[in-house]
């Protein structure tokens, strides 16, 4: 099977317009007869389900949470990028495109990224029209801030709750369609298989998580909007329920997996405090607008951070990357923190943390505020009092969250932060139309691999999720469904449904039948440790080879010794989790295989064998300028396909943020 990305001909800036002008359409009477299944109700899923229903398609939407509003997009904090150039600082579609390709360390597909930049502005318009309360200036117009890896202000935000507000906008659009009878919503349902008939995706097998009942659902097309797989590391900033199951089942049914090893480790998270830890909490990248990152110059420093004078602090990002300073991209910032801690300069009880300090920002803002009030010679206390208020307005909810978790007040002492797994750039391989290698099966948002290359820039995940759902899939799906208007709904008594349901049922019964001695959680933790230690922020051949073997062994142990209490036909979260961990145990192996085969460093994928003299990621464009798309052949057996990446506009260079 060969990979056909279906990138339209023509100049980069014309591709999407041309595509839309020539794409096949479905007339309104036919749309009603076409059924679309949407898995996941985060930004990508909710926006796709709502938009397709508005167009007239009959949609069924599924989420494992108790309400579509709880999908993990809700937790995104800092903002959403858009090439509006409201700040008159030189932004444009081209710059957003350029920054994203460069930020992704030249491992994304140019045509997709260009389209993303192109539709970005319309996203902001749509959200404002829905009543999303973005931050505004006193004149009543929208406010912007900076994010990492760029030199313009193009990030729109709603305090530190941007994801929540965008998701509630998409959720309300979705609920409106539910009320209109165009979307049938299935909450507390989990997709457990894709049904493929004559080579096309034709439905799913789902489990009602309250009753445990297995259900069959037909669809002319299936959209996977099921998010990323960062929870393979056990500890991550993902929600506890975030999982790879839907994408993995699709992979096993023929959808290739693109660049599975590309993982984003976010530089600013609250550090691990102990073995009990169940998840890690992000402190938004927007904090790097005002916070300065540092460690003491002296090893084994025992003084409190407030007592260490400026000249004894190493603001290592400002030192190493003067052009971008604290706003270097995430992969660069994370590795720099790891480097300092590995060298013995880390802080806190575990010594695996660095400081994120707002002292200077508080004084700076305080001085401005005092000036506004006519006080041009304010004393320290006045500046601190006034400055804290400004910082509170910008980041109040994040500071509160930090204090609840750590018991420390970040207005008075620096935050302690450390990198943590946050996002997965890898995902199901899709073509320009967001279709996977299985016709009729699509992947949107974090679930696909396409737009972020080897490193995602901040505030771009929300942009991509909504771009895919609001403005891409409504056009591209029609191109496929136009060919399906003569296909009547296939009865779910079809043998392919029967077979898929049996596979699902057998796996559940097998899991329940093991009756071993070790909990699901314990296996998940053990997998996470292998992944973090050997396929985390730095990777090498020896470690990855060991990891593959360790994961195989752990998977064997899981399938012979996991203990799942309760019954199948009841509300049983342990059983739900067991299925997901079972899939992570396969996914983890593929990630390590992918990381092992890619003998270069790029973006978040850092192979210790491939670095510059200064310790930066060193790409090998001659040998690795391609998307690695893995085809599932049988258990523990994958075949690698390559989609070559041609850069006609943004010519790859060694990324520099100095």
């Amino acid at each position, binding site marked *: 099977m060969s990979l056909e990305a279906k990138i339209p001909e023509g100049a980069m800036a014309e591709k999407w317009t041309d595509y839309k002008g020539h794409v096949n359409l479905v007339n309104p009477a036919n749309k009603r007869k076409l059924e679309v299944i949407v898995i996941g109700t985060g930004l990508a899923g909710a*926006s796709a389900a709502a938009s397709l229903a*508005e167009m007239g398609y009959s949609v069924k939407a599924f989420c494992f*949470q*108790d*309400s*579509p*509003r*709880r999908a*993990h997009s*809700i*937790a995104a904090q800092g903002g959403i990028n858009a090439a*509006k150039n*409201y700040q008159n600082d030189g932004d444009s579609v081209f710059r957003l495109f350029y920054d994203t390709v460069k930020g992704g360390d030249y491992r994304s597909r140019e045509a997709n990224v260009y389209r993303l930049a192109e539709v970005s502005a319309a996203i*902001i*318009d*749509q959200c*404002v*029209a*829905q*009543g999303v*309360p*973005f*931050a*505004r*200036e006193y004149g*009543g*117009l*929208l406010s912007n801030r900076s994010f990492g890896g760029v030199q313009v202000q193009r990030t729109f935000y*709603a*305090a530190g709750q941007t994801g*929540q*507000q965008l998701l*509630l906008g998409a*959720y*309300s*659009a979705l*609920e409106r369609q*539910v*009320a209109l009878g165009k979307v049938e919503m299935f909450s507390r349902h989990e997709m457990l298989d894709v049904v493929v008939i004559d080579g096309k995706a034709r439905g799913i097998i789902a489990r009602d998580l*309250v009753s445990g009942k297995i259900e069959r659902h037909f669809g002319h097309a299936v959209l996977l909007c099921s998010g990323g797989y960062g929870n393979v590391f056990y500890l991550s*900033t993902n*929600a*506890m329920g975030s999982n790879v199951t839907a994408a993995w089942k699709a992979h096993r049914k023929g959808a290739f997996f693109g660049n599975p090893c590309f993982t984003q480790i976010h530089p600013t998270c609250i550090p691990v405090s*102990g073995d009990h*830890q*169940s*998840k890690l*909490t992000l402190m938004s990248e927007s904090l790097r607008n005002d916070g300065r990152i540092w460690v003491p110059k002296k090893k084994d420093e025992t003084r409190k951070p407030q007592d260490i004078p400026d000249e004894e602090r190493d603001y290592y990002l400002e030192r190493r990357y003067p052009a971008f300073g604290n706003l270097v991209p995430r992969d660069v910032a994370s590795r720099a923190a790891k480097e300092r801690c590995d060298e013995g300069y880390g802080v806190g009880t575990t010594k695996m943390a660095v400081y994120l300090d707002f002292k200077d920002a508080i004084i700076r803002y305080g001085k401005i505020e005092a000036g506004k009030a006519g006080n041009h010679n304010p004393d320290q206390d006045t500046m601190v009092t006034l400055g804290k208020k400004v910082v509170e307005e910008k980041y109040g909810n994040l500071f*509160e*969250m930090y204090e*609840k*978790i750590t*018991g*420390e007040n970040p207005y008075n002492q620096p935050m302690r932060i450390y990198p943590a797994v946050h996002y997965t750039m890898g995902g199901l391989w899709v073509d320009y139309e967001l279709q996977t290698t299985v016709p009729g099966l699509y992947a949107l948002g974090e679930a696909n691999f396409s737009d972020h290359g080897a490193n995602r820039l901040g505030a771009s995940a929300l942009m991509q999720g909504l771009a895919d759902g609001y*403005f891409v899939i*409504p056009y591209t799906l029609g191109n496929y469904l136009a060919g399906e208007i003569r296909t009547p709904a296939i009865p779910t008594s079809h043998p392919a449904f029967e077979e898929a349901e049996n596979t699902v049922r057998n796996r559940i019964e097998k899991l329940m039948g093991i009756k071993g001695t070790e*909990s699901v*959680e314990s296996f998940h933790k053990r997998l996470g440790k292998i992944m973090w230690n050997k396929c985390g922020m730095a990777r090498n051949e020896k470690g990855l080879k060991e990891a593959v073997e360790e994961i195989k062994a752990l998977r064997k142990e899981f399938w012979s010794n996991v203990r799942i*209490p309760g019954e199948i036909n009841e*509300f049983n979260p342990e059983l739900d989790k067991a299925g997901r961990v079972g899939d992570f145990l396969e996914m983890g192996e593929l990630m390590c295989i992918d990381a092992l085969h890619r003998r270069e460093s790029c973006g978040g994928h850092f192979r210790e064998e491939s670095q510059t003299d200064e310790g930066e990621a060193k790409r090998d464009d001659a040998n690795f300028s391609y998307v690695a798309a893995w085809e599932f052949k049988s258990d523990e057996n994958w075949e690698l396909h390559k989609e070559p990446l041609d850069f006609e506009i943004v010519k790859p260079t060694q990324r520099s943020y100095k």
Partner: protein
Amino acid sequence: MEHYHMNLTLKVWRQKDSKAKGNLETYQVKDVSSEMSILEVFDVLNESLINDGKEPIAFDHDCREGICGACSMYINGQPHGPWAKTTTCQLHMRAFKDGDTIVVEPWRSRAFPVIKDLVVDRSAFDRIIQAGGYISVNTGNAVDANSIPVDKRYADAAFDAAACIGCGACVAACKNGSAMLFVGAKVSQLALLPQGEPERETRALNMVAQMDKEGFGSCSNTYACEAECPKGISVAYIAKLNSEYLHAGLNDSDS
């Protein structure tokens, strides 16, 4: 911050399913770190229940950073426990001391039936949103985002109302099981913005009608909802809802 360890007695509501009769079960949990969240204490307790061959306690949770609104424990008589403006998942054990007894129940409200143990069905909230908690704008219909300036004061107030996470603590806190704070927050958010204007009146009427239909009680202004709201949503939005509803009702009877 000083860390310490404690031994605790947990009394937890156990209920097999929606039809079963539930009861409080007592558990001893030892060596709990003050740095743990209360959900992590439940993780540890569940791990030991599983190891002992018993059924773990079912509870809703997901993001564990106070924003998804899934977690919902009624702790020592307060939704989300003793800390103000805090969800259950963000409640850390610093809030307790050695030897404490902690009683944990599900949200208690007629409109939120128990599914299992501490898990309740809050789909009534989704249905209230379906009744009008949106602005009817199809994808692609929008004008440029800066074409309609919004007074920052109203924009900020709309944002404060929009901070609602839909957890249902307001209902659980209310002796009448009223959902007025939840509905008030959404109606106010959209009424404060120019984009929400065209459907302002029907929205208030329809959402209140759905709220009544779902079996939520009336508001008697005890303000327990505001006190327990993890996002600090103000009861001023209930007043705003009343005014919107009254206004809409009068106009409605005119037509």
